[in-house]
């Protein structure tokens, strides 16, 4: 019985640890995904590809110019709200949500 208790405690601690690790891994995947988009709209569309994108138009804007002065900022705002949604869902799934 005695040894059983010890195994029980150990496995709870182990379970907690892997749970936190899984949570963290999923968090890193979300971060990689969102930051990739963050990079593409600003450094990609707004800086590195700006001249190439300028051949397309969005109303009165050249597309590259629009990304550099308008579009990237809209995407930044959306990215944070998507992150909030994903993380709140993840918190609930792993029962890390605060009470």
């Amino acid at each position: 019985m005695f040894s059983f208790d010890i195994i029980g405690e150990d496995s709870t601690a182990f379970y907690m640890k892997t749970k936190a690790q899984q949570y963290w891994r999923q968090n890193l995947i979300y971060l990689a995904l969102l930051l990739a988009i963050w990079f593409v709209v600003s450094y990609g569309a707004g800086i590195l590809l700006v001249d190439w994108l300028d051949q397309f138009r969005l109303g009165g804007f050249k597309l590259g110019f629009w990304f550099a002065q308008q579009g990237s900022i809209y995407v930044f705002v959306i990215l944070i709200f998507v992150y909030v949604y994903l993380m709140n869902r993840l918190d609930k799934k792993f029962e890390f949500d605060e009470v």
Partner: protein
Amino acid sequence: MDIQGWTFLIVGLSFALYLGIAYMARAASTGDFYIAGGKVSPLANGMATAADWMSAASFISMAGLISFMGRDGSVYLMGWTGGYVLLALLLAPYLRKFGKFTVPDFVGDRYYSRTARIVAVICAVFISFTYVAGQMRGVGIVFSRFLNVGIETGVIIGMVIVFFYAVLGGMKGITYTQVAQYCVLIFAYLVPAIFISMLMTGNVIPQLGFGGTLADGSGQYLLERLDGLSTEMGFDPYTDGSKSTIDVFFITAALMVGTAGLPHVIVRFFTVPKVKDARISAGYALLFIAILYTTAPAVAGFARANLLETVDNAPYADVPEWFTSWENTGLIEFNDIDGDGNINYTPDESTNELVIDPDIMVLANPEIAQLPNWVIGLVAAGGLAAALSTAAGLLLVISTSVARDLIRRTFVPDITQQRELLFARVAAGGAVIVAGYFGINPPGFVAQTVAFAFGLAAASFFPVILLGIFSKRMNKEGAICGMIAGIVFTAAYIIYFAFMFPELNNSENWLFGISPEGIGTLGMVINLVTAITVSRFTKEPPLEIREMVETIRVPRDLEKGSGRGDG
């Protein structure tokens, strides 16, 4: 009522509002003073962060700078908004979970080192002072332009107001006045922008009017007209850039990373109750900031088109009234070199007859659009709100660094809370006086110091906090070496080009073609590489530190429940 009367009335009312709020939100404990008791709602924190962040430079100068830089102005637009994505995803939630009061707190605890804490305190104080001097100057300038008082009197009035609510209310007072200041400044920015957009493009929304057709019946797009006028007068087309791609890349990155590393912004995320509040309030903050930051390039485009059309070979005798009235303030200067009575505005310095201060693009908007006098008063109140809110946030960082990080956590650990609060108030008061002094006697290098502040924040705080959260292996040796390498490299580069050899400051001499404004990005990379390398060859951090990193990575501790340490 005339412009002066309206300005006095609106500015006076807004000041009364701030003081009233500050009186209601007095701080009773160090927790109130440093982090508003940790009870600020995420929406309020979002507004307060937006006001904290948007300074006199964002409100008054940015649109004007963009209108002269054209597409290159996007370094400011992307740089000063994109940092919030980094802040929200990489720093804010974890720092909130850490649950102390300041950035040096985190650096000192995570790296179990007094040296690291002191280096962090020095960076925080230096960054905040360079920044705050510009804000006090901004207050003085707004007063002198709109109310005809001397810049010095203006700075002193600003000092008295900030003194009252920062010293009395601490973070609690600052937070709720910043909420009010955000409302004042965004309203003051949008009203003239919307009117100008309607006037020029017939579109109520400036962001859409910017890409719309002109209202003069020509059916031409605004930006096409702007490109056409610019090339006709010898300038580069507005929608083209003239900076090199690598420089634009590095400046944008330095401003983004610097934004995420500025202590007065980071500390705002300590004031909300929960980790998920920290995440969402970063979203609100960026949303509120984006309202101004997407309007600014539109204002820049309208103002530039309007200016070029007004002055394009126009007889000086026929200029509109606003032109003459701003000439009186010295913000527009006309010098008829060829004596033909026409304005000749060109990029060629030897024949150019017109010098325009970029600030005019926002300040003169209400007059250009022939808006009623109260709108001009509103713009003055908005500029003051922007400058005061940023100044207050910075002063709080300075006072907290001195009272908490230096006195309590470094030298007098057994100090009572009441005495610590007293020290915090005295430090805030002292910081107001020093900032006011620099506002009245500005050092001649204010422009460079902003690059300095961002470069240092990028090269010091951002990497060290990032590694503290995302690498359990990072130890004190790595962090301290990284910070020092990043700061020394960045500071040396900026000092070399901005102060020692300004005549060499051009792209031929720059390292890889990176200007001093963008060098913080390289400083950050150096910091990261140094820190990681050194940490691999030195002892790994103690077990309790690795456990602490594990706790800040999850929003709730399942065993213990989440609680804020008393510090």
